[in-house]
C-alpha cells in the first residue's frame, strides 16, 4: 500500500474517533462513568482497526486473491 494511502487510512480514523469521544464527553461529561465507557468503546474500536489494518493482506498481486473475499457476509 502506498504511504499516502496508508497515512490517509490512519489519520482519517483517529481524527474521527477523537471527534466522537469529544462530542460524547460534551454530553455525558468528562470523567463520569459513562465517559470511561465511551472511551473504552473507542479504544476497542481503535484496537480492532489497528488489527484489521495490520492483518489486511498487502495488495500484492500474488497473494491477495482469496483473502480479500473472506470478509464479506454474502
Amino acid at each position, binding site marked *: 500500500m502506498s504511504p499516502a494511502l496508508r497515512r490517509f487510512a490512519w489519520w482519517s480514523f483517529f481524527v474521527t474517533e477523537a471527534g466522537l469521544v469529544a462530542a460524547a464527553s460534551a454530553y455525558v461529561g468528562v470523567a463520569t462513568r459513562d465517559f470511561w465507557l465511551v472511551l473504552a468503546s473507542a479504544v476497542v474500536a481503535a484496537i480492532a482497526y489497528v488489527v484489521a489494518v495490520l492483518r489486511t493482506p498487502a*495488495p*500484492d*498481486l*500474488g*497473494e*491477495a*486473491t482469496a483473502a*480479500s*473475499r473472506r470478509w*464479506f457476509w*454474502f
Partner: protein
Amino acid sequence: MGTRGWLFDIGKCTGCHACEVACATWNATGAVSWRQIVKIETGVYPNVGTRNLSMPCLHCDHAPCLQACPVAAITKRDDGVVLVDQAKCVGCMFCFWACPFGVPQFGAEGKMSKCTFCADRPAELPRACEEVCPTKAILSGEMHELEALAARSGGERVGGPAGPAMFVIR
C-alpha cells in the same frame, strides 16, 4: 481439469474483427465489445510494418480485477475462468483500473461485463471467437496443452505479476 487460457498468434491475425463480432453475437453483448482489436503501425516508409492484437479477458491467475472489486462480484472458477456476477456489481469501475489490459467494459447499465470464455460452451467446443477466426490465430484450451503448442512456435506466456492466461506467438 487444468486451468484454461488462450494462444494467440500475431503472425496469423489479420485484424479483421470477425472474432469481436462473433463474440458479440454469441454472448449478446449489446453495445459493448468483449474483444479489443488494435492495429499498430511501426517504421518509416518504405520499411513499414503493422501488427494486430485481438484482446479478450486473459483470465489471470491472480486476477487484479477480482482483488480490486469492493463487493466480491468477480470470482474465479476452478478452471481458471474469471467471471463477474452482474447482480452484485455496483458499477464502480475499480476492476477497469486494476486490469492491466483494459478488459472490463461498461454498458449503458453501468455494470461491468467482459469475456466469459463463452462460459456456457462446454470445454470441448471452440470459443465463438476461435470458431470464426478465418486464419486460426486464436486458440483456446488448457494451459499445459497451449504451453506445448506455443513452445513449438517460440511463443511465450504474457508476462506480469497477474499471471495472464495467454500465450502469444510473435
